C-alpha cells in the first residue's frame, strides 16, 4: 500500500503539491490525471524518495519514505519499478545491460539475470533487440524497454509516468495491454500518470484527478465516467 499524507512540496516560490492525500490500494491500477505541470511526476518521485516532502509524508507498506535508513530505502526501491516519462534509458549501455544493471546490483546469479532479461524483453515484444543501443530505438520501443527494465525487478509496484504520451494509437494500445497484463499476470500494483483518457479508462481500476496540488476527485472508473463534476468532465471531454 502506498499512501500520501497531506504532502506539500514547493520549488522556490512555486507551490506544486499542497495537501496531496491519496491511498493507492494493492493489486489495483490507480490512474493519476491532471493538467500538464500540476505535479504528477513530482508526486511519483516522492514515492521512491527521489524528492522529499516539505511537509506531510509518503508511506510505502506502512513505512515513511523520508525516514528510511539507507538499507530500507534500497530494499523499498528494489520492490518498485519506475517507468520514466522520457524513458531515461542509460544511453551508454545496450538494451540488455539497461535491464540487467538493477539485477546485478541485487547480486542475483548470472544465469538468473540472463533469464530475467530475456523474459522481460519477451514480455514487451522486443525479444531480439537486446544488443541494440537506446539511440537506435524509436520512442515507442524505448518506452517498452523502460517497462521491461521495471518488470525485470519483479516488483510489487510499478509507477508508469505517461507511458503512452506521444505514441500512435496502436502502440498506445499495446502498452495499455501490457500494463493490464502486468497487473493480472504478475500481480503488480500500478500507478499510472497520464492525460490520455482512452488509456486511463483502459487500464484503471481507480482514477484520481489532481488539481492545484491536491486530489480534486477520486473514484472507480464508472464513478469517474458518470461524474457531474465540471472540472473532471471538462478534462475527460477535452473542452477548452
Amino acid at each position, binding site marked *: 500500500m502506498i499512501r500520501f499524507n497531506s504532502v506539500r512540496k514547493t520549488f522556490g516560490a512555486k507551490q506544486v503539491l499542497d495537501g496531496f492525500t491519496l491511498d493507492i490500494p494493492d493489486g489495483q491500477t490507480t490512474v493519476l490525471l491532471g493538467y500538464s505541470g500540476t505535479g504528477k511526476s513530482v508526486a511519483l*518521485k516522492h514515492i*521512491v*524518495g*527521489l524528492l522529499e516532502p516539505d511537509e506531510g509524508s509518503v508511506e510505502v507498506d506502512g513505512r515513511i519514505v523520508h525516514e528510511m535508513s*539507507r538499507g530500507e530505502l*534500497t*530494499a523499498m*526501491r*528494489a520492490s*518498485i*519499478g*519506475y517507468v*520514466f*516519462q*522520457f524513458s*531515461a*534509458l*542509460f*544511453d551508454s549501455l545496450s538494451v540488455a545491460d539497461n535491464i540487467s*544493471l*538493477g539485477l546485478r*546490483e*541485487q*547480486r542475483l546469479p548470472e544465469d538468473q539475470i540472463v533469464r530475467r532479461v530475456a523474459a522481460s524483453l519477451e514480455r514487451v515484444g522486443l525479444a531480439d533487440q537486446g544488443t541494440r543501443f537506446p539511440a537506435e530505438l524509436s520512442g515507442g520501443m524505448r518506452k517498452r524497454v523502460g517497462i521491461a*527494465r521495471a518488470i525485470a*525487478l519483479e516488483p510489487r509496484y510499478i509507477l508508469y509516468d505517461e507511458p503512452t504520451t506521444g505514441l500512435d494509437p496502436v502502440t498506445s494500445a499495446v502498452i495499455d495491454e501490457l500494463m493490464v497484463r502486468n497487473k493480472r499476470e504478475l500481480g503488480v500494483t500500478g500507478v499510472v500518470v497520464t492525460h490520455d483518457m482512452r488509456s486511463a479508462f483502459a487500464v484503471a481500476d481507480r482514477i484520481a484527478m489532481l488539481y492545484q496540488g491536491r486530489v480534486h476527485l477520486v473514484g472507480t472508473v464508472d464513478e469517474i465516467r458518470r461524474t457531474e463534476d465540471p472540472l473532471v468532465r471538462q478534462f475527460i471531454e477535452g473542452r477548452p
Partner: protein
Amino acid sequence: MTDHLNRIGVAQLGFIRRTGRWAKDAAHAVSLVRTWGPLLALQMRRLGVDSIPIALFLAVFTGIVLALLASYIFTGAVPLYFVGALVAKTVMMELGPVLTGMALAGRVGANIAAELGTMKVTEQVDALETLAVDVHAYLVVPRVFAATLMFPVVTAMAVAVGVVSGWITATSLLDLSTPEFFKGVRQFYHFKDVWFGLLKSASFGAAISLMGALTGLRTQGGAEGVGRSTTRAVVLGCEAILVLDAFWALVLL
C-alpha cells in the same frame, strides 16, 4: 548578540552535519567495490590513455620553448649546460604536472561534467537511484579513482617527452652537446623532483574529476544547464590546480 552567535552556531552545525553526511556517503560509495570495480579499467582508458596525445603534444612544445628560453637567459652569464638543468627541473616539478593538468582539466573535467550532466537532466541519474544503484559508487568513484591513478602516468610520459624535446632542441638548434645537456640534468637532479611532480599530478587528477562529477550531478535545466556545468567544471578544475600547486610548494618545498 546571543541571537547572532546562535545563528552562527546553527550555520556551523549545519555545515558540520552536511560534511559529515557527505563523508559517510563517500565512504559508503568507496566500500561498494563490486559496483565501481568493473568500471575502473574503462574509465582509466577513457580519462587517462585517451588523454596521452594532447599531453605529449603540449610537452613537446614546452621542451622546445624552455630550451630556447634557458639559452637566451644563460648565454654570456652562466655555463650553457645549465640549460639541461633548467629544462629538466621545471618540466618535472612544475610545467609537466601543471600544463598536463590544465589540458586535462579541459578534456577530462569537461567530459565528466557533460556526461554526468546529461545523465542528470535526462533523468538517468534518477533511474539509477530507483534501481537501487548507488550513484556515487557507479558514476563518481570509478572516474575519480581512474583520474587519480592515470594523471601521474600521463604526466610521467609528458615529463619524459618534454625533457627529450628540450634535449633535441638544445643539441640541434643551440651550441650544446648531448653530454653537456645531461651533465646539467644530472647535476641538479633529486629524486624528490620526480615524486613531487607525480604527487601533484595525482592530486590534480582527483580534484579535476571530483569537480567535474559534482558539478555534473548538480546540473539543472536541459542542454543549457549541461553547458553551464561543463564550463564551470573546467574553471573550477583550473582554479583547483593553481591552489593545489601553491599548496604543495608551501608544504613540501
